[in-house]
């Protein structure tokens, strides 16, 4: 179906066609449980007529007429827009297609998953492993009435690895989620080592008094507290007057130790692509450089409102970042731990996503966390919550930035050592 046939004279439009194919292999409680597969084809039409924007989506084959009809119907009452769809532009082509990986058979996905189960259960016979390997192949085609026409293929391997140990009513669970464009980016051995380390540290529960502590956030949990930053740098929050950071480009926002980069075209980046959902070329740029605001996350509409240009962050639900890279520091995890007289290491959080992003307050359950005493991990703390104001903590309380970074979804993050994080915890007599 071509865009031309969908549009009437005087209408501008954009047709996005997404095809995907996926296979999922799932092990639960050490056993191969499910094999799923699926194919999907979606067509999304944005249509501007009389300055108003309509939006329609269809997955029903052979009913393209519905797409034009629905888009036109919504455009009659749709939002007034001033932006124009972008024309052709030179595009970078990041490596996001794994030719070898795409040719992998079902068995090739099952074998390493089974290997994971065998290795974890031979380490401790009561460990229950969960593995989900999801192989996705995507084809994205976009064209618009300004003459843009682009297409790319992308592979992705989403792997969830988890181990659980239940002893009585005590449950110790740890997991990691990986997303890579290339199969050989997955380091199974390293993941196993990391998960078993977290299990070892957590076998013994220890007491901690409530209070303010220096807290080491592992790279994964740094990812759990960054969302208010993302939200406040988002063009939507800026144009709505919700972000506390509007009109603050060039200002010192957080610690000079922190540089946050939006990397749109990084080779093998899980969120990399040549162009965004609107046909704007993707690129890489700093959001915060040495703690100073450099750029917002913009799509066509929000950029137009701010009198700027889209920086290639257009998504299906407004602007969104591509790969987010937090630049590394110089401290090793071992040194961070051994330097602490008393503190907490937070390895997993739960529920930290709920709340108010624009105030910066983040509270979550420390679903896996450890007490550090005299430079050593003492054991696991349970029934505990952490609470911090992310804006304040990243401005005033960063005492070290980790040297080693790891990928968590599309974020590449170091660990952070933050001072004075509040920890509420169940009192010991209950």
């Amino acid at each position, binding site marked *: 179906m071509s865009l031309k046939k969908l549009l009437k004279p005087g209408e501008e439009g954009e047709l996005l066609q997404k095809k995907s194919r996926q296979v999922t292999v799932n092990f639960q409680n050490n056993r191969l449980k499910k094999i799923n597969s699926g194919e999907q084809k979606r067509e999304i039409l944005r249509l501007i007529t009389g300055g108003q924007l309509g939006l329609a989506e269809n997955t029903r084959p052979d009913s393209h007429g519905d797409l034009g009809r629905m888009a036109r119907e919504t455009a009659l009452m749709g939002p007034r827009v001033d932006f124009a769809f972008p024309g052709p532009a030179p595009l970078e082509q990041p490596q996001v297609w794994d030719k070898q990986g795409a040719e992998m058979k079902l068995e090739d996905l099952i074998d390493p998953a089974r290997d994971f189960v065998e290795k974890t259960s031979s380490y401790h016979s009561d460990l229950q492993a969960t593995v989900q390997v999801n192989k996705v192949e995507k084809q994205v085609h976009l064209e618009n009435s300004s003459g843009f026409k682009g297409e790319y293929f992308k592979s992705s391997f989403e792997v969830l690895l988890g181990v659980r140990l239940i002893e009585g009513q005590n449950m110790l669970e740890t997991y990691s989620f990986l997303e890579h464009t290339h199969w050989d980016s997955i380091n199974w051995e390293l993941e196993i080592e990391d998960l078993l380390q977290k299990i070892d540290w957590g076998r013994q529960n220890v007491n901690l008094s409530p209070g303010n502590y220096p807290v080491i956030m592992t790279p994964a949990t740094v990812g759990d507290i960054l969302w208010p930053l993302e939200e406040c740098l988002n063009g939507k929050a800026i144009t709505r007057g919700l972000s*506390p950071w509007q009109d603050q480009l060039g200002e010192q926002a957080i610690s000079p130790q922190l540089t946050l980069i939006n990397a749109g075209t990084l080779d093998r980046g899980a969120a990399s692509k040549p162009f965004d959902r609107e046909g704007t070329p993707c690129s890489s740029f700093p959001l915060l450089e040495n703690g100073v605001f450099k750029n917002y996350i913009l799509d066509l509409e929000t950029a137009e409102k701010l009198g700027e240009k889209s920086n290639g962050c257009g998504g299906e639900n407004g602007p969104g970042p591509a790969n987010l890279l937090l630049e590394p520091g110089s401290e090793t995890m071992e040194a961070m731990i051994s330097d602490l007289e008393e503190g907490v290491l937070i390895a997993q959080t739960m529920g930290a996503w709920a*709340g*108010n992003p624009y105030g910066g307050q983040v509270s979550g*359950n420390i679903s896996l966390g450890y007490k550090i005493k005299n430079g050593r991990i003492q054991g696991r703390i*349970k029934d505990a919550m952490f609470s911090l104001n992310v804006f304040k903590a990243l401005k005033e309380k960063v005492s070290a930035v980790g040297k080693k970074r790891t990928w968590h979804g599309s974020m590449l993050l170091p660990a952070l050592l933050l001072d004075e994080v509040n920890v509420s915890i169940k009192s010991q007599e209950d």
Partner: protein
Amino acid sequence: MQKKLQNLMSLSKADYCDIRVEDTEITNISYRGRELEKMERKIQFGGCIRTLIGSGWGFISFNSLDNLEEKLRQAEDQARTINRVKKGQVQLAPAPVIIAEEKNDWGEDPRQISLKEKLELMQHYNNLILNTDSRVNSSRIVYFDHHTDWFFASSSGTYIYQEKGDIGGNLGAWASAGQERTYDAVTFGSNNDFSVARGHDEQVVAAARRAVEQLQAPTVRGGQYPVILDPEMAGLFVHEAFGHLSEADEIFDDKNLLQLMQPGTRYGPSFLNIYDSGREWGNRGASHYDDEGLPTQKTYLIQNGEVVGHLHSRESAARMETEPTGSARAMDYRFPPICRMRTTCIEPGLDTLEDMISGIDYGLYAIGGLGGETNGELFTFTATRGQMIRNGKLAEQVKNVTLTGNVFHTLNNIDSIGQDFAILNNAGGCGKFEQSPLPTSEGSPHIRVQNVIVGGEG
């Protein structure tokens, strides 16, 4: 459709096989601040085939109904692959063979309401919110309605058509002053009646005023408190704290959990009763049949403080030697059904809110739910706002209230259950594995819980 699906089922070589086809039409409207953000229409059409051979399930989803036999064979191959490496045989609890056609019992059918009327109603609420106070500088209005024609056939001979509806909305206000940002909202939802979207004028203005009041409120002090949960928070609590634990597909494969969830195990006080129901018509999640073609029902999970039941699929019911409960649900055709909640409720008790408050020297009243999460042992849930209780009386407002607890212990800390009861619907939904958001709703009276951990400032 019936003939096409039933013919396909007759070609299956699997021990068991079913096919679902869903044809869904969706309308979405959203405002952010003064500006209309989105007007969208969607058609989501697709199907899936599920096969069972020996110990293995295969599953394939698709948009096109062409070459269905080829797809059936692929799903069978997947099931065989598992069966080759895994010992045993998956048993399914017996299910009646059903031939049925069920229309949705519409109040006001959203398809009969013009797009213009829906838009104007949302715009009206948005204007009310934004005109409440100069400090209300933005809003978040979300409205959606879904209409689904749902077709199901199985190799056992069942064929069902059912019509399903899902309507939801969020009418939220953002207030700002300096660096402070606060939020409050009115929500609605239904499986069969657009009229739930109407008549919120006074409520949205009140929500906007509350957002403004919250600007002055300090962040709650972290610690351990007796907490009164309003029906919305208590609903979120029962969903996270016990509902997920009752989903039997999580239990039956894990001998430790199986032990912990044995019928008769005490989890709460003797006056605590919890149920989940697929037949609370008018609420999100209600439907006649589940995604395995079984009738839905009301299932008690806790009676008099003790475990009495779980939420089952046919497979989990067979493994735990009990009856299925119509709780196998899939978010849409892209996913296989798994054990899920629908409308989960704490039954009303005997107490009044006044008594609950007056019994607390120093505690917290948590109001309105923003969301929650559980990992099977621990759970968290976040309130829209809070109010401190001092010397038996409601005192100052506080904000950023997130609570946490342990699923195995916290129900035991409930010491009071109110007489009031409300089922609450919103525009969100429940997430489990990769299936989110699934329409659910929750009901509860006010409840009081002792020794709840609250995150906050030191």
